[in-house]
């Protein structure tokens, strides 16, 4: 029973926060709503007994959110326009939700009840085959982030001149 109450509270929080991203006029506040959404989403992971994935998700998203906050502050001057058509958003959301939820109609998950918790010992075996790909991807992302910083510094210098 307590699980269901926590689940309901988390669901309402997550849906309200995701709606707030578009309802708020300021990008910075939208980024804060998104950060809170990630936090509540990681609590969902705890609810299904996956503490490792909850922590990993939270740590990875912290990096993204820090960048979003910086861009949110920096782009405040470029964001002064009416950005979201809320009626279109609600109508599209309803249509998409009904379309997606209709796939659950008539489906029963009877083969469940064998819950598994994901632990760090699973990582090595499941990622072994793709380790090289992730290394290449990580190096590429590192290069791109360095390039982005250099470009930003260059732009700042040009503006000063």
């Amino acid at each position: 029973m307590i699980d269901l109450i926590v689940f309901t509270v988390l669901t309402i929080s997550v849906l309200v926060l995701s709606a707030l991203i578009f309802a708020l006029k300021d990008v910075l506040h939208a980024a804060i709503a998104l950060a809170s959404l990630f936090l509540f989403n990681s609590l969902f992971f705890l609810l299904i007994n996956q503490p490792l994935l909850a922590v990993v998700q939270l740590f990875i998203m912290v990096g993204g959110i820090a960048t979003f906050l910086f861009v949110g502050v920096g782009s405040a001057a470029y964001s002064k326009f009416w950005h979201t058509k809320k009626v279109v958003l609600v109508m599209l959301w309803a249509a998409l939700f009904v379309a997606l939820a209709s796939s659950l109609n008539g489906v029963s998950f009877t083969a469940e009840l064998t819950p598994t918790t994901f632990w760090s010992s699973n990582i090595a075996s499941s990622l072994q085959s793709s380790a090289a790909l992730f290394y290449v991807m990580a190096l590429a992302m590192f290069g791109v982030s360095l390039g982005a910083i250099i470009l930003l510094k260059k732009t700042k210098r040009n503006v000063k001149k």
Partner: protein
Amino acid sequence: MIPVEYFAVVSFALFAIGLAGVAATRHFVLMIFSIEVALTAATLIATVFFYFNTDGNIMLLLFTIWTIAASEAIALVAFYRYISKYETNMDVAQLSKLRDK
């Protein structure tokens, strides 16, 4: 224990908000946020199905989703450079002007 269907419905609702957000907003940063919301829903439903089915190799999928989510932040910074350089705004309807500059 909470049934799988409940988690699926929440994930669908989140994913629908993400997709609808991409279509309904004109703000570039909010579009990126919408994609993040959709990716969050994807991680949630993938983890839930892993939890109840045991035999799935979920880590590859989750790492891919997290990599895409992290790359978006970098793309946003690189894009912000052009916005600030050419003094345009974050309206995607105005972005075609960047092509002429």
